[in-house]
């Protein structure tokens, strides 16, 4: 096995490249195979309108000023600007009633900017469509 020793001395890349050809490629075919996402992923927020006491703490603490308090049926509710949001979940932490929870939805790309603004009604737990 002189060749084997000689190959090893040469450079490990020679053997590695050949062995890689016969191994299964490490590619995950994303659009067909949905990726397994860990539990705590910081994806899109899920806002529960029933728990919210419209105190505005989340809007005050948001580093990117992505939460705007909007009047919904008399009460002030947070409206999420997803294009400004940096998904740090400081709002979930500083919300006294933890009405904001994280979810694993991360496919948020959109062709026009307007549907990146998530209104409180449409985003609440009951109506969580997307």
């Amino acid at each position, binding site marked *: 096995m002189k060749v084997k020793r000689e190959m090893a001395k040469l*450079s490990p890349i020679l053997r590695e*490249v050949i062995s890689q050809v016969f191994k299964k*490629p490490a590619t995950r075919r994303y659009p067909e195979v949905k990726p397994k996402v860990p539990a705590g992923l910081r994806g899109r927020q899920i806002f529960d309108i029933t728990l919210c006491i419209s105190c505005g703490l989340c809007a005050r603490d948001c580093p990117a000023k992505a939460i705007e308090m909007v009047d919904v049926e008399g009460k002030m509710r947070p409206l999420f600007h997803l294009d400004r949001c940096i998904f740090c979940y400081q709002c979930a932490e500083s919300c006294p009633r933890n009405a904001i929870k994280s979810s694993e939805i991360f496919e948020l790309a959109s062709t026009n900017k307007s549907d990146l603004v998530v209104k409180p009604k449409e985003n609440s737990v009951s109506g969580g469509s997307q």
Partner: protein
Amino acid sequence: MSLDLNFVFRVLVFPGFAFILLFTMFCDWVERKIEARMQNRMGPIYTGPVGVLQPLADFIKLLTKEDIVPFNAKNFVFRFAPIVSFSIFVFSFAFLPIDGASVVSGSNFEGDLILVLTLVSIANFLLFLSGWSSTNPYSAIGATRVLTQLLGYDIPLFILALAPAFLAGSLNIAAIANKQYVPFAFLIPWTFALFIINLQAELEKDPFDVPHAETEIVAGYETEYTGRRLAFLKLAKDVQMVLGAAIAVELFLGGPYGPIFYGLSAVWYTLWFVLKLLIVVVVTEYLTCIFARLRIDQVLVVNWKLLLPLALLSLAVTVGVGLWLNPL
């Protein structure tokens, strides 16, 4: 001269233009898939059955792109250099016997080996012109690097090609391919190895991938090209790859001639030719994957201080072995 249908068919369709184009695209697909597999990823899948039509999709897309000619580029040369170099490469295919007989029957003559090699050099020179005529500093540097590399590997190319010609006793490619009862690659393996390394330099593959090194000079001589011209420039590059591999097959692996089992000989010859050519493509791809890119002055050192003397040495040894085998 009456329009000889068989002649038109041979030139335009089978071993001629259409076959070469499709075969080049197939080789480009093989190359991309092999390189992807060597890097443990998948390569194109979604265009065509297994991504086979990917090079075709690239080509057509480039044809439909907007065509920009830089304002102070030298118009004439800028427009025609890619197409002319592409046509020269395809034209030099005419002399290689793909299915037993050369494309245009009776077109192989004594010395067509020298003609093919010079055609390759001229086409490469045109690539230099294409870079030089687009007045972008990056393509200027890329172009000068094409030239320096061209000078570096051209002479060893000729010398190495002479070795099999000497063994076969003739300068006619078809004759050389015919005389190889034992493929020269096994008879004079050192010349074959040097020829493959030289091929890497000619095709600007990885160890010698200096002219269009993305990291230093944006895209080398291709920087200013868009649309149709870029399509032909890339296709010229692919055809050159297939042509280089084809020359290696003709000179060292016995061309299309291989054992025929039954049925039409032309079919078997083409199959053998395609098979051998794919082997050479895989070998060059393997070399690309295991080497990092050398600096331009290191490439020159390798060309002039290493390839040239070794080529001369191998020619001398081949002549010695030849004379010792069957004295004149």
